[in-house]
């Protein structure tokens, strides 16, 4: 086998070997949370640990809400009847509380990374 063939073979082997890794790399898991009547649904969301996750937050209320979490280092205002995207993680396994800053008493929830 010539050098050229060998390098092509090496490249192919490399591509096939890393294919599954590259696929998971490209596909960031998506999770959704809804805000209704100043409450989060679900209030507890389980996500995979050690991986970046895309979180879509739908605000079904007419009022704005600020999704905030000290543990996740996240903060985003979502105006009424709209949605917002927040990337979180990778997280070590554990619980990460979040809250709606405009409704501190009711809008409470947590992300559980497993």
């Amino acid at each position, binding site marked *: 086998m010539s050098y050229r063939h060998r390098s092509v073979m090496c490249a192919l082997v490399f591509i096939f070997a890393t294919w599954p890794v590259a696929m998971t790399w490209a596909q960031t898991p998506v999770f959704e949370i809804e805000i209704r009547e100043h409450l989060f649904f679900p209030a507890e969301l389980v996500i995979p640990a050690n991986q970046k996750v895309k979180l879509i937050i739908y605000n079904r209320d007419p009022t*704005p809400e600020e999704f905030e979490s000290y*543990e996740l*280092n996240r*903060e985003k205002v979502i105006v009424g009847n709209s949605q*917002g995207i*927040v990337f979180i993680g*990778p997280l070590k396994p554990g619980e990460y509380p979040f809250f709606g*800053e*405009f409704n501190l008493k009711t809008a409470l929830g947590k992300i559980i990374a497993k």
Partner: protein
Amino acid sequence: MTDAVIIVLREVLEAMLLICLLMASSTAMGVRVKWLVASLVIGMIGASLYGVNLETVSMAFAGFGQELVNSGLLIAIALLLAAHNFLATRKMIDSDYTTPVLLLQFLCIGIVSMAVTREGAEIYLYLYAYGVLADNMNSVFSGGAIGMGVGLSFGTFFYYGLSALKSRRRLLVCCVLSLVLAAGMMGQAAFYLSQADILPSQFTLWDTSGVVAESSLIGELLHAAIGYEASPTLTQAFLYLGSILISLLAMLLAWWIARQRVAVKKESC
């Protein structure tokens, strides 16, 4: 009502620290605090515009307009604070130095109006939706007024504390404070950018929320003052240190120039 107190206080506190710090350093540099009214007016106009258009802004840039605007404002404020440190250090070393009044006023107006825009937009949004639209004016606005009052009195206390220092020492304290404030802002800009997936997502380096929780009063104060972060990431720490480095370089440069001027003056005497 307590929600309104907390929301308004949190936002006011951060802006208040900046305003009082710049007021104290301006007077130490022999510049009158004329910039305050202009920067508050521009800031409030900016805040209402940002608040009204938040939906449009949020939807822009693939849904990450808010993160881009906020981090842009934070980085700009941090850089202007470094420029302020340059002027303050020159005055600190060379007491005969006449501070360029227009430049300093421009810096102060820039810093304060951008800070008020960012913090004020949230207050505007909250007061408008939960006070005006929800027909709950009394409770929300009185809560907001209490929050504002606590923030203002804290600011007054802070300002007079700084003013009690002699001007050289006051400038030094202001420089150190502005250095850490700017660094905290850079760190915050980093988390906005990773929230939008523009900067890489990373594991956090450590977690000190067991010692000082960010949600506690001390945590909030530390967050406003030095950008305290219980669980930072590597990029955040990197930008935090980078900002400190920029400010220090600006101050070193000012120190070097001022020293040379002083030496020239001595020779000519």
